C-alpha cells in the first residue's frame, strides 16, 4: 500500500464511454496483484473530497505500469478521461485483497464479467491461464460497449454476450453459463444483480466475487464500504477484506 504520483502514459477510448489508461509509477505497479484496486485522487483542489476506486486490469512490471479500464459515469471518471499523456494522478494502492490464484493448478475455471466488472478479470485470466483451463463469459450492454474481446480470446475460451443482442450471445450471462458445462471454480465481477444470480446459480462450486461499494477511505478505517456476511459474522469491509470475497460468505 503506497501513495504515489502516477504518470499517465496512455489514455484512449476503448469502447462506448469506456477508456483504457496506463499509469506509470515506481512502486505501485510492482506490488499490484490481480483483483486489487487503486484509489485515485480526482482534481487538484478539494472540490472532490473522495478518491475513486478503480480495478487494476493489467500490470507491466518491466514498464512499471498498471492498466485501468474505466467507464465515464460522473465527474470523477470524466476528469480521468480528459487526462493527457504526461499528466500526473495521485494514486493510493494497491488496495484490498485480490484473487488467490496460486492455489489453482489444472483446474477448469470460469470467469464471469459484466461491463466494467470485466477489467479485473483480465489480469486474473492472464495469471490463471498459465496453469488452468480458463473460460471467460463477458457481458456488455451493446456491441459498441465491448472491449478486450481479442485480449481474452488469446488466453481463454471467450464468450461475449450483449443485453440487446447486437453481438454474440443475446441475453444475460447467467443464461449462457448454464449451457457451458461444468467448472471447478469461478470468479465473477460486475453489477450486483449479475453477481447475485451467479452466486445462486453456481452455489455448488467454489466461487469468488469482486464487490463494489461507495467508499470513503479505501483502507478499512471509515466503515463506509461494508457488506453483510452469512453466519452472523457481521460486516466485512469491501476495501480491506475484499473486494474479492468467497461467494458463499456474503449476503448481497
Amino acid at each position: 500500500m503506497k501513495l504515489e504520483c502516477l504518470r499517465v502514459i496512455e489514455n484512449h477510448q476503448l469502447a462506448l464511454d469506456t477508456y483504457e489508461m496506463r499509469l506509470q509509477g515506481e512502486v505501485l505497479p510492482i506490488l499490484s496483484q490481480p483483483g486489487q484496486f487503486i484509489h485515485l485522487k480526482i482534481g487538484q483542489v478539494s472540490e472532490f473530497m473522495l478518491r475513486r476506486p478503480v480495478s487494476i486490469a493489467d500490470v507491466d512490471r518491466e514498464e512499471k505500469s498498471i492498466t485501468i479500464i474505466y467507464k465515464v459515469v460522473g465527474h470523477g471518471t470524466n476528469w480521468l478521461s480528459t487526462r493527457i499523456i504526461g499528466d500526473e494522478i495521485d494514486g493510493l494502492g494497491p488496495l484490498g485483497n485480490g484473487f488467490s490464484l496460486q492455489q489453482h493448478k489444472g483446474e477448469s475455471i470460469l470467469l464471469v464479467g459484466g461491463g466494467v466488472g470485466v477489467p479485473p478479470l483480465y489480469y486474473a485470466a492472464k495469471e490463471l491461464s498459465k496453469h488452468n483451463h480458463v473460460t471467460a463469459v463477458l457481458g456488455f450492454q451493446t456491441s459498441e460497449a465491448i472491449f478486450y474481446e481479442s485480449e481474452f480470446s488469446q488466453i481463454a475460451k471467450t464468450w461475449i454476450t450483449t443485453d440487446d443482442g447486437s453481438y454474440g450471445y443475446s441475453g444475460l450471462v447467467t443464461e449462457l453459463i448454464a449451457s457451458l458445462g461444468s467448472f471447478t471454480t469461478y470468479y465473477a465481477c460486475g453489477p450486483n444483480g449479475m453477481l447475485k444470480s451467479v452466486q445462486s446459480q453456481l452455489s455448488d462450486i467454489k466461487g469468488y466475487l469482486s464487490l463494489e461499494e461507495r467508499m470513503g477511505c479505501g483502507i478499512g478505517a471509515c466503515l463506509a464500504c461494508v457488506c453483510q456476511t452469512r453466519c452472523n459474522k457481521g460486516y466485512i469491509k469491501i476495501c480491506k477484506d475484499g473486494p474479492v470475497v468467497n461467494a458463499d460468505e456474503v449476503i448481497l
Partner: protein
Amino acid sequence: MNLSVNIAGLPLKNPIMPASGCFGFGKEFSKFYDLNELGAIMIKAATQEARLGNPTPRVAETSSGMLNAIGLQNPGVDQIIKEDLPFLDNYQTPIIANIAGRTKEEYVKVASQLDQQPVIKALELNISCPNVKEGGVQFGTDPTLAFELTNAVKAVTTKPLFVKLSPNVTNIADIALAVEQAGADGLSMINTLTGMKLDLSGKKPLLANQTGGLSGPAIKPIAIRMIYEVRQQTQLPIIGMGGVTSAEDVLEFLLAGANAVAVGTANFQDPYICQNIILQLPDTLSKYGYSSLKEVMFDSCVNPSISL
C-alpha cells in the same frame, strides 16, 4: 518550534489529531506513518453493545464535502477494549475515546468502562451524531438534556471530558454553556451538519439512511463561526474541526479560538494529511509572524486571555 499545548490538563506535543470516525482505531493509518507523531488520536465512537450501523450506501460526495451515515457501527466497548486498545497502547500518543449511546445509562456505562483504561487519556461525549435514530443528536440539541447527560458522565470519570457539539442548532453557545455548567472540561466542535443528496436515476436519497452528516471544507466557514461565537462565552478548551485540509486551516481554527484541531474527512483524500500538517505547521506559523503555538493563542481573534 514548540508546538506543544495543554488542553484540559492533557499535554499534547502538537495540536493536531485525527477526528473520531475518520481514523478507525489507528491501525490502518499506522501503515503510513508513525502514530507517535500525532498530538492525539480521537478513536471511533464506542457504544455498549456491538452495532451494525446503517445499510449501504453510507457515503456520498458533495461539492467540497461528503455525506456519511455510518450509523455508529462499532464492535461494542468490551470488544474495543479487548481488540483495539492494546494496539494503541504501543504508542505514547494520548487517545481520546468517543462515546455514544441510546440512553443516558448507556453513555454512563460506556464512559465508566473506558475511564478504567489507562491508554485512554480523555473522553469525548458524542451528543451530535446525526445518523442514528435514538440518542446522539437529540442530546445535542436540547440544553437540558445535554446538561444532564454531561453531568451523569462526569460523575463516573476522572479523565478530562470533552463534549462534542452539534452544529444543527439555532444557538450553539446555549449548548456549550449548558455542558460547561454540567462540568465538561472542554468542547469538541463541530460534528457534521445534517444533509442529503438524491440519486436522480433512482429517484430517492442516495444514502440508504436518507440523510447523512456533511463534513469537509464545505462546512469550514460554519465551524469557524461557531467556534468564534462559543469562544466569546466560555474559556473552556476547544478542539476545533470541520473541513481542515492544511496548516493554514489549522491557524484559522486557532485564531478563531480553538486550542487544538482535529482533521476528519481530509484523511480520506490524503492518508498522510495529519503528518503533513504537523510538518508544515511551524513554517506556516512563522509565515504569519508567530514563533510558537502559544503566541497564536494569545493572538486569538476573540479572546486574548485564554489560559494555556
